[in-house]
């Protein structure tokens, strides 16, 4: 499937889709979206790139194995759940910064949890798809 059009398009599409996925991730708290969908969209961006440019090119683009995103994301989600313990609140209580930020809205531990979900989803989908594509 190495057509010129797709190849050219995908190299422009990758950053755009990634940006879009971050956008989806961040708006999740107020509008449809969130870490799960955002993660899926980001994975689609990479898979599309892999389709048009070959798996090895995408891998060199990524620099590291996507599997490492899984512990990273799980760790982030876990830490955001543990953070309230520092303030003597039960595990996974939402912590919120009192003022709201422009563009992002309120920032709290839930956002970091969502980012964790986002990273895990990218890690999981890419690991599965890359492994299968590699070995079959």
């Amino acid at each position, binding site marked *: 499937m190495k057509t010129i059009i797709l190849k050219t398009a995908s190299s422009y599409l990758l950053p755009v889709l990634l940006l879009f996925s971050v956008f989806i991730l961040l708006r999740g708290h107020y509008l*449809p979206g969130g870490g799960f969908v955002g993660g899926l969209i980001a994975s689609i961006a990479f898979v599309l790139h892999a389709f048009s440019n070959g798996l090895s090119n995408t891998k060199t683009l990524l620099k590291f194995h996507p599997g490492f995103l899984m512990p990273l994301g799980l760790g982030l989600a876990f830490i955001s759940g543990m953070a309230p313990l520092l303030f003597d609140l039960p595990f996974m209580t939402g912590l919120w910064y009192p003022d709201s930020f422009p563009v992002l809205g309120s920032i709290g531990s839930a956002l970091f949890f*969502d980012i964790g979900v986002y990273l895990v989803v990218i890690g*999981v989908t890419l690991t599965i798809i890359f*492994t*299968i594509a590699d070995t079959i």
Partner: protein
Amino acid sequence: MLTAILLGFIFSVFLVFTGKIFRGKPAILAAIIPLSLFVYFSSFINRVASGEVIHESFEWVPSFGVNLGFTLDGLSLLFALMITGIGFLVFVYTSSYLKGHEYLDRFYGYLSMFMAAMLGLVMSDNLISLFIFWELTSISSFFLIGFNNSNAASRRSAITALAITGLGGLSLLAGALILGSVGSTYSIAELISSRDEIVANPNYVLIAIFFFGAAFTKSAQFPFHFWLPGAMKAPTPVSTYLHSATMVKAGVYLLMRFTPVLGSTEFWNSTLIIVGAITMVYAAVHTLFRRDLKGILAYSTISALGILVFLIGQGTEGTLLAAALFIAVHALYKATLFLVTGIIDHQTYSRDVTILRGLRKVMLPVAIAGFLAAISSAGIPPTLGFLGKELTYESTIAVIGIPLLWIILIVVTKILLLYAGFVAGITPFMGALPEKFSETKMPSFLLWVPPLLLAVGGLVFGIFPGLIEPVIKPVVTAMGENAGDAHLQLWHGFNTVLWLSIITIITGTVLFFVLKPSERLGLKAERVEFLSPQSIMERLWRMFYLTSSGWTNFFQNGYLRNYISTIMVFMIGLTGYSLYNTATFSLDLSTLSLITGYEMAIVGMMFFAVLYTVFTKSRLAAVASMGVVGLAICLLFVFYSAPDLAMTQFSIDTLTVILFVLVLYRLPRYLQLSDYKTRIKDGVLALSFGSIITILILEVLATPVDSEISRYYADNSYVLAHGKNVVNVILVDFRGSDTFMEISVLAIAAIGVFALLKLRLKETDQR
């Protein structure tokens, strides 16, 4: 206290990162941990001896009444001192015994994990946390027994031990849950106060049986004893620590701990007496037929555990005191004997008592330790063993209405144990040194100091029993009896007990000189081996394997299509049956909302896509039209205002199609493999499955939904979680723990896929 208990766990996790340091010389540093714990627990001796009971409680899962509650009373203090004290010596010993071993750090990790689990077990005040620590000891001992994991026999005995003690663990869980519901608390201290209700409850016998199941499997009582000799495949420090001093006594501990709650009934006492008596005599007789030093020690340990159960079964103040003292006595001499055996094994590469001779000439301190332990085990004055034996005899005789048979049995057991102790502790050092061992070297002081310390301890405590009294007497208090003004002393005067002692010592010594362990005796024992619980268990084991492999071959036959049909048939049967019983089939057309044109269009699209999937001759087309079905569902989500779902579904569908294409890309060309009949069968199956699911969904829709919950989320999502998107707020905030579990499961699945495909590839590469 919590830190003290969990220190072992913390250290074993810490070893994962810094393990390499502990493989070389600094291995001995690991012993600092048990030593400091020992000092810490020693500081409580005076407070506990004056009758104080130290409680500490941490909330864990308060909604289920499960807390990390810890109690330090006489009973747990005795065990804690044993665990940390002997633990310290074993840690030191190991640093030399397994010197330079590739996995020494791992060994320390398991060992300290075990130590922490054991400490948690003896100090838990909560039934559930007690169960958890109990299982942790089983699991860590599994790792320790199977430490030489390249050896098949080692693995097998580890699995046997885990199976037996794991079974007991389940029994403990069942008992704990019933006991908790009968006494309406999981706290042991509170259960004691409602003892009368518990004993009167119709479930009392059941509870007692479950607790017996746990205690007898852990403490190797007949007929569950056979895992213990098998577990001797473990490195000697493990045998010392787990199989003589600590873990096997956990069952005894359990019985002692629950004596005030469940004890003093006819059922409790007579079961314990009978099982204990059978075990002590059976195992003691078995020691005669062993030649392997560790085998002898294993059986004599089982016998000693039998004596303990027997004593607890009598349940008087005197016998409980005797049991408490005997625990300490046994820990001291048996740990010594095991450590001595380990040294002999380490230096001569042999544990066969028929060829070991004259080793005192090359390792005198070890011989002294062995000798002291042997006389303590024999109960010869002035050792602590003598005190233990006297107290055992005295208290047994003092029990009102005890049949003569029990007294004879315990004397016979003691005689045989004396013999076993002499064979293990003295025989290898007596006589002339054979040519074969003349090259044997003196072991490192790290090896011989720990057993010598323990052995000397047995002697010192025997001469000055006042030293150990403050530890022993509160044990009886903890079991709800009054130790009163009983004093441990060497000299009791001329009485029946003394005569029994003299008989024991003389008969045993004569037996030692007359009966030499030999191959002939061992062969005789093997003839009746087929009747032993172990071989019966092994036969059952084989049957279990046959049944399970037959079952597996039938269901797990490697064809994905068969798996799916099995699952579907089962599901149709089960759901269909329950729907048939409960569902009311009625369809009221008037309540249906109007179907709009675009909905019709989508459903039509789905319909044709499904038909195309079924009948197409190309895989790629089938996958693509499946994708169409998925996207059509997404559109429905959009129409019914669930944009979140739709977005997720869109992305998932895209990825699924990509995944299918990737897999199918490399498959051979499409072939028609199934015949006409199979296809009809599959069709019927698919249609009935579809209709069952449809009916199920309609049923779900007909059930009124509790709108309270959704209203709560809608009202509170902005107030409590600052979010306007309720779906996302539920995912990341209200039900964040669920999400966390889900992403963990996803990660595990991905690792699974990775491991399956990559590792398989590596294997084929090797070939």
